[in-house]
């Protein structure tokens, strides 16, 4: 989640659903929280009963809207106009939290003279390369710097080059009139939202912001999140009780799978995967900034190779702030992975790590598959044949593989594409060899999930899985053992990484009551994630060396070293298992307060991130009402209701030496310790591929031209224009005039592999339907309850018509624009079947995270069924 990462420092929710009860105002946008995160939403209801104002902004009226104090219908894809206008209002009316903004954000920083804004370039920032359609030169976005590379600032925030003034100019055109014309939201409703936000911020009050995939699944998703985070920074809401940004994540361990992670571009704990990019014109985002660790050279990133560990650290680390610890984290990771084979002499085995050479994200890999470049595929509890955008293309891609392994509880669509599907399939034409392996359910294995608030919770095992079903841990462990055996005698350099890989998770003793004898020990894996000492001095001063099993656990990531004496699989998880017998993920004590003994929240069990900001620059609570973490002058330390997200003994009046590096460079008033300047980034001088400030672009498919700039859609998005299966409707296409957005229902889960096999849930939510307004239904002669066909340039599907006032036609620039809502849970397998909504969606990707745009595209509708 670089939207949050670039703005405040870490890619995770800053708060928890339970802290919402402390909010005075909750803005829910890009989420139908009541239906997609129902139990989390109970906290919103509680807050409302205590007097909080709840606002829901969404194209689709849902139970979230029904329970809100204020519901504002809006056009899918127009979020940044709505939010940008709020930013403008706050700046122009001096309605922001001045002391917070001046001290805790980068509003006073001066930006380079050669930076050009979208105001200057009609929707583009400086550094754009028309040929490669990317921002190849990010250098002008950086701060102005002094001789020590420290940013120049203007504490009065009057200098025209300071961030605050640049933002005033950038957002000048995001007016209430623009909101009315582009979002279809009457100015009065919008103003009511802003006033509610403003009234509920400041020293005495806080407001929270909740979002979900309604924001992320857009071709500018990261910038929408940035816009929301900017508002929260301007209102002084981050790091405070009842404040913050709650990213509502959709899967039991989706946070865990980005922390650890199963993503191509990341290593554990948000360190980047080493890269040797192929592009002719690669990005130069790190080029002349002094925020990087290495010496300052005006060089392009493609020239800065990552062949050695030092070169990697130069790119991945920072000179200032918490990221200055990257050397300790990466060396400890390499020690965890390669054990004794990782030595100082061989760069801790760094050269074995595979380097990425481009965008190897899911959709791009699917296209590689379609082109026959991928031979083998593992599907581990995921179902692209129905669950990924442009699903028809996905199914075609699977047919080009040599072999595929599918692990699931049920015979899901992706396992059966070779004999079944919405299109004709002839098995005799499909070569793909398929291994479908039964998987264990969550109750049939032990292990942990990391939930939406970064909380790691352990599950005990209830019973053995049935038959040959096994945990995925068993599968990977067993496969690893077999491969190690196959390569055991290899002397080829390419096989030495696998030979060196540490792989020892056998149980010390058989699991009591289980018939399975070779199920690995998940707690041993957790120990590796937590980290352990490879070498440690005992009390007598003797240095002991340890094997994995007997090694003492590290107590926290602060113990990690870059000298090979510690090993750690994911530094942010350090502390979850600080000593044998103390698995904090498995601790379950609710205390009615911050619940610090229920599970373990990364990092270091902090529940509200950046909580130094809950105190004023002097370290005193902003108010008694919102007291959370403060500086205890007697004890000379930070204290309060949570674990301080700040060096615990760094006094508020600490000021760094201009030449200081690492955490010493962070002043006692800078709460955002992951940022090199310790401040929340209203403006992102580095780190994003589509600009330092959120800017409104239309969705890749839109009924209207962009009213704000000549630039129609996100200039850095990846369009896959050359793909014939990814045809897009043109702007205002009369064949595809209707805006469509997809969403979840409470009773089903994603494409349905975990729910459509269950009669209880199918009884509640039996079939696919599309929500459509009475006006559009009348226009197209579609009758409530009857069938209708939805069509995009990628495909056609059928659904039952749900004619409802929940979707309202909007007036956009005087013209009526209709919107349709479509749940996306169906497919051709399971006990309840229906069309695949993702046969309609396209594969245009957001530039920073390569997420598909499933929340705003265009279609057409007609009554009847598919012939």
């Amino acid at each position, binding site marked *: 989640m670089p939207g949050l990462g670039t703005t405040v420092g870490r890619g995770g929710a800053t708060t928890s659903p339970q802290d919402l009860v402390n909010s005075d105002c909750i803005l829910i946008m890009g989420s139908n929280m009541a239906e997609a995160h129902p139990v989390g939403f109970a906290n919103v209801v509680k807050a409302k009963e205590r007097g909080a104002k709840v606002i829901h902004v969404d194209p689709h009226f849902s139970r979230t809207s029904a329970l809100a104090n204020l519901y504002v219908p809006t056009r899918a894809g127009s979020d940044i106009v709505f939010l940008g206008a709020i930013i403008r209002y706050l700046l122009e009316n001096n309605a922001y939290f001045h002391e917070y903004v001046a001290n805790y954000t980068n509003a006073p920083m001066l930006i380079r003279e050669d930076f050009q804004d979208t105001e200057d370039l009609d929707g583009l920032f400086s550094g754009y390369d028309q040929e490669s359609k990317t921002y190849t030169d990010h250098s002008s976005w950086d701060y102005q710097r002094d001789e020590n590379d420290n940013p120049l600032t203007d504490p009065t925030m009057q200098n025209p080059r300071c961030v605050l003034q640049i933002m005033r100019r950038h957002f000048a055109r995001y007016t209430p009139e623009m909101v009315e014309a582009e979002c279809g939201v009457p100015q009065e409703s919008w103003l009511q939202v802003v006033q509610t936000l403003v009234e509920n911020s400041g020293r005495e009050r806080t407001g929270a912001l909740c979002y979900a995939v309604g924001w992320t699944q857009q071709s500018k998703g990261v910038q929408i999140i940035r816009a929301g985070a900017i508002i929260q920074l301007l209102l002084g809401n981050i790091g405070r009780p009842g404040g913050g940004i709650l990213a509502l994540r959709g899967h039991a361990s989706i946070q865990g799978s980005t922390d650890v992670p199963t993503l191509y571009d990341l290593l554990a704990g948000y360190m980047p995967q080493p890269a040797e990019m192929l592009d002719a014109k690669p990005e130069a985002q790190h080029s002349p900034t002094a925020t990087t660790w290495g010496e300052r050279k005006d060089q392009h990133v493609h020239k800065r190779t990552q062949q050695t560990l030092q070169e990697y650290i130069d790119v991945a680390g920072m000179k200032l702030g918490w990221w200055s610890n990257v050397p300790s984290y990466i060396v400890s990771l390499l020690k965890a992975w*390669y054990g004794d084979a990782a030595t100082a002499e061989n760069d801790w085995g760094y050269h074995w790590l595979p*380097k990425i050479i481009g965008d190897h994200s899911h959709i791009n890999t699917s296209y590689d598959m379609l082109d026959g470049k991928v031979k083998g595929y593992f599907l581990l509890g995921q179902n692209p044949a129905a669950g990924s955008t442009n699903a028809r293309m996905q199914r075609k891609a699977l047919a080009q593989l040599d072999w595929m392994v599918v692990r699931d509880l049920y015979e899901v669509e992706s396992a059966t594409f070779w004999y079944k599907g919405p299109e004709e399939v002839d098995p005799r034409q499909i070569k793909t060899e398929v291994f479908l392996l039964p998987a264990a359910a969550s109750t049939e294995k032990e292990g942990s999930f990391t939930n939406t608030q970064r909380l790691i919770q352990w599950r005990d095992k209830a019973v053995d899985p049935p038959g040959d079903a096994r945990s995925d841990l068993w599968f990977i462990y067993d496969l690893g053992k077999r491969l190690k055996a196959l390569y055991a005698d290899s002397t080829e350099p390419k096989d030495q990484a696998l030979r060196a890989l540490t792989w020892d998770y056998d149980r010390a003793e058989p699991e009591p009551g289980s018939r399975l004898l070779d199920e690995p020990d998940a707690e041993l894996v957790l120990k590796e994630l937590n980290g352990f000492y490879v070498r440690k001095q005992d009390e007598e001063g003797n240095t002991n060396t340890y094997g994995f099993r007997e090694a003492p656990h590290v107590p926290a990531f602060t113990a990690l070293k870059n000298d090979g004496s510690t090993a750690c699989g994911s530094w942010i998880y350090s502390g979850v298992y600080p000593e044998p017998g103390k698995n904090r993920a498995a601790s379950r004590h609710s205390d009615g307060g911050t*619940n610090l003994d229920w599970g373990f929240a990364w990092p270091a069990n902090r529940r509200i991130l950046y909580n130094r900001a809950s105190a004023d620059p002097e370290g005193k609570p902003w108010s008694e009402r919102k007291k959370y973490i403060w500086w205890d002058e007697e004890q000379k330390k930070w204290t309060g209701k949570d674990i301080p997200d700040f060096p615990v003994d760094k006094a508020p009046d600490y000021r760094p030496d201009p030449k200081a590096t690492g955490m010493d460079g962070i002043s006692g008033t800078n709460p955002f310790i992951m940022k090199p300047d310790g401040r929340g980034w209203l403006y992102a001088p580095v780190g994003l591929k589509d600009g330092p400030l959120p800017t409104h672009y239309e969705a890749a498919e839109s009924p209207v031209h962009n009213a704000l700039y000549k630039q129609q859609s996100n200039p850095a998005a990846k369009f896959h224009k050359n793909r014939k299966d990814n045809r897009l409707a043109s702007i205002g296409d009369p064949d595809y005039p209707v805006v469509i957005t997809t969403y979840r229902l409470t009773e089903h889960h994603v494409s349905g592999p975990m729910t459509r096999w269950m009669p209880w849930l199918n009884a509640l939510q039996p079939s696919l339907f599309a929500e459509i307004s009475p006006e559009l239904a009348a226009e197209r002669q579609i009758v409530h309850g009857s069938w209708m066909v939805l069509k995009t340039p990628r495909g056609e599907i059928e659904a039952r018509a749900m004619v409802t006032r929940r979707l309202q036609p909007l007036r956009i620039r005087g013209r009526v624009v209709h919107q349709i809502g479509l749940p996306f849970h169906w497919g051709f397998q399971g006990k309840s079947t229906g069309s695949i909504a993702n046969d309609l969606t396209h594969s245009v990707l957001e530039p920073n995270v390569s997420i598909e745009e499933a929340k705003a595209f265009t279609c057409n509708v007609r009554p009847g069924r598919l012939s």
Partner: protein
Amino acid sequence: MQEHANEPGRTSKMLTDVMEIGSRVQPFSRESRDKAARIRDARVVHSVCPYCAVGCSLNVYVKNGQVIDIEGNPDSFINHGTLCPKGSATFQYTINSSRLTKVLYRAPYSDHWETKTLDWAMGQIAQRVKKSRDETFVERLEDGREVNHTLGIASLGGATLDVEENYVIKKLFNAGLGIVSIENQARI
């Protein structure tokens, strides 16, 4: 640590919590308070809902080696015993006659599944991985830069799996085998 369901006092607290909607406690009758549930004497195993990321705590009730019921954990500060429809249906997700219990194998160009042993399948998969990896492994780019990877194998999935599982997937596939396209639902 073993815990058993329906100790006196617990039931009453559980009911109070379960009947809480928003912050209002709904009244319930003496009769419902006094009723004994079939989960009495079952072993309670602590788990977490496998669906969305709210992370509701589950109590899995096990009797005679069988899961007999799954409910919300009343002690949890996250859900106070409540669950949404999906979480409440976790029982049927795990105890379901449609579940796969055997390895199914489809040979190239075949029109049917064959049942295979797990050991056979694992051996075959390991060989496929080795073959594809050996055929597609790239040590250096044309310009000499070392990359040590294969683009010939890819993996998708993880958001519904355990943290520990995600970790070993990345470790084996990436650090061991050099696979780079390791992806999960987080992008979707």
